[in-house]
C-alpha cells in the first residue's frame, strides 16, 4: 500500500504582534509543521512500521523555506517528499481550497496512492476543507475528522471512527482508495530521532512547478481574496487582578470564598 500525506508548514504567531495590511508582520511569525498533519504523518509511519504501507510520500505546497518542515516529516519516517511551488504562487495572499485542491490533486493523481492522509485543518488559514475537496475531485472516497483508523483494511475498506460533537464517535467504513482527514489525538506523534534527522537529509525531495503538473497559472488563481485583517474587538469586561502571584492568588481566593468554594 502506498500512502501519501499532505504536509503543510504553518505560520505561528507570537502573543504580541502587529498587522501590516492583510498580513501579520514577518517579525512576529515563526514556522512549524501543521499540528494536524503531524498526526497524519505519524499514522502513515505507523502503518509502514506495521508492514501495511510500502511507501509513505509527503506532498507540500510551499516555497524553498519550508523544506526544513518537510525534512521534519522525513525525519519521522516518511520515505520521500514532493514540494509544489511556482513563482505564480508568490503573490497570492490566501491560497483558497480550490487552488490547493488542484495543486495537491495533480500530485496525488500522478502518485496514485491507496490512501491519502491529511490533517483535519491547518492552524493558520483554518479552512478544513482541502482533503474532502481533493477526494471528490479525484473520485476517491473520504472521511472527515477521523480519530481512529483500524490497520487491517479488510476487503479494501478502511474502518474509521469519526469524532462528532458532544463526545460521540461515528463508526464508518470507507472504500479505498480514500482520503482521510486526521484529527489530533488519533495517535501520539513521535519526536524525530537524531538518526532520523540525519537520514532525512539524504531522502529524495522533488520540487515540481505548475508546468510539471500540467496546470495553467490562471486555473489556480484563487476565487477568494483576503481584503482585511484586524485584531478581534474584545467584548470582554473581564476584571484583571494586578500584582505579584501572591497578591493575585489572594484576590482569587477571596472571590472563591465569596462564592462559597472551599470555606
Amino acid at each position, binding site marked *: 500500500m502506498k500512502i501519501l500525506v499532505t504536509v503543510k508548514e504553518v505560520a505561528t504567531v507570537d*502573543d504580541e504582534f502587529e498587522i501590516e495590511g492583510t498580513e501579520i508582520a514577518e517579525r512576529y511569525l515563526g514556522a512549524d509543521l501543521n499540528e494536524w498533519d503531524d498526526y497524519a504523518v505519524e499514522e502513515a509511519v505507523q502503518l509502514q512500521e506495521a508492514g501495511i504501507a510500502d511507501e509513505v510520500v509527503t506532498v507540500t505546497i510551499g516555497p524553498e523555506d519550508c523544506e526544513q518542515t518537510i525534512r521534519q516529516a522525513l525525519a519521522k519516517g516518511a520515505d520521500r517528499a514532493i514540494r509544489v511551488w511556482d513563482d505564480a504562487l508568490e503573490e497570492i495572499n490566501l491560497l483558497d481550497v480550490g487552488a490547493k485542491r488542484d495543486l495537491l490533486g495533480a500530485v496525488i493523481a500522478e502518485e496514485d496512492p491507496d490512501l491519502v492522509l491529511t490533517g483535519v485543518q491547518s492552524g493558520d488559514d483554518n479552512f478544513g476543507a482541502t482533503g474532502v475537496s481533493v477526494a471528490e475531485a479525484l473520485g476517491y472516497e473520504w472521511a472527515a475528522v477521523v480519530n481512529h483508523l483500524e490497520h487491517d483494511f479488510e476487503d479494501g475498506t478502511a474502518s474509521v471512527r469519526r469524532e462528532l460533537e458532544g*463526545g460521540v464517535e461515528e463508526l464508518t467504513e470507507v472504500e479505498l482508495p480514500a482520503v482521510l482527514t486526521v484529527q489530533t489525538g488519533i495517535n501520539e506523534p513521535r519526536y524525530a530521532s537524531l538518526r532520523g534527522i540525519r537520514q532525512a537529509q539524504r531522502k529524495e525531495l522533488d520540487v515540481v512547478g505548475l508546468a510539471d503538473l500540467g496546470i495553467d497559472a490562471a486555473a489556480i488563481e484563487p476565487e477568494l481574496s483576503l481584503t482585511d485583517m484586524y*485584531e478581534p474587538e474584545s467584548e*470582554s469586561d473581564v476584571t484583571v487582578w494586578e500584582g505579584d502571584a501572591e497578591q*493575585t492568588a489572594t484576590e482569587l481566593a477571596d472571590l*472563591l470564598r465569596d462564592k462559597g468554594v472551599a470555606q
Partner: protein
Amino acid sequence: MTDILAVADHRRGELRDVSYELLTAGRLLADETGGDLHVAVISGTVEDFASKLDREGVDVVHTVDYGEEFNHGVYAQAITQLYDRLAPRYVLTPNSVNGLDYAPAVATTLDVPIVTDVVGLETDGETLTATREMYGGKVETTTELEGPAVVTIRGAEWPAAEGTGDAAIEPADVTIDEDALGSTVNGFEEVAGGDVDISDADVLVSVGRGIEEEENLDLVFDLAEALDATVSASRPIVDNGWLPKNRQVGQSGKVVTPDVYIAIGISGAVQHVAGMKGSDTIVAINTDPNAPIMDIADYAIVDDLFDVVPALTAEFS
C-alpha cells in the same frame, strides 16, 4: 440567481441547534439578495424535521427521504441536484463535523468556491463578504468572492430562528445513486463515559496546554483537592493521553456549566469555549493578555500559572 439554500444538520433523530441558526443567517442573506430561503433536510424523519424547520422567514423546506442517518454521499448528491434545480446564489451548511464531510465535495462538484467557518456574512448581491478567524482566533479577516459559493457557518454566531412560518414543505425530486456511495455508517458510540462526570461538578479546575508537562498536572490536582473541585481539561491534554476523554471540555467533549470554572493555561479556542461558556463565573489564569479566553472570562490573572497556582493552593491549605 438570488435564492439561498440552507442545509439542516441532525443526528440520531434530533435537529441540531445550528440548523435553526442557519435559518437566521440564510434569511439575512436572502433579504440582501432579494431572494427566497430554501431549506433542505436530508435523511431521517424528514417530515417531522421539516415541520420544526418551518420557522419565520423560511420559504420552502425540501425533504429528501433517504436513509436514517448521515451519509456524506447522499448529502452531496441531494444538494447538488437541488442546486441544479433551484440555482441558489449561496449554499449554507453548518461548519460541523458532518458539514465539513460533505460541503467541500459539493463545492467541488458544482465548481464553485467554498468559504468555511464563517462568523459574519454580507452581500450586495454580487460580492459575498465573509468574516473568518485565522491563526487560532488571533486575527479576524474579511474575504471576498464573486459569484455563487458554498459557505459553512460557525455555530452560535447567529441567533436561532424562532416563530412559526408558512413554508411550503416539498418532497425533493432527487435520485440517489447507491452505487456511488462508497462509505457506510455502522453506528455510534458515546466516548465520554468513565468514573468522573465533569458535567455534574459545581467547581471545575480546568487545565490546558500551558501546563507544558504531564508531571505538572500535580499542581492542578493539588489545587482541585484544596478547593474540593473536579479537574477537567482542554483538548491537547486529552490528545496527549495525560487525562482521559471523559475529562475533556469542548465541542467534541462535554458541555459544562459549573458555578465556577477556573481555566488554567487554556487559550480558549472556539471549540473549547463552546463547551464552557455557560459557566456562571469564569476565571482565567494565563500569561497571554490577548488570549481568546480573556474575552469570556469574568476575572483574570495575567501571570505564570506555575507561580499563581501553588500560591492559590497555599491559600486554602
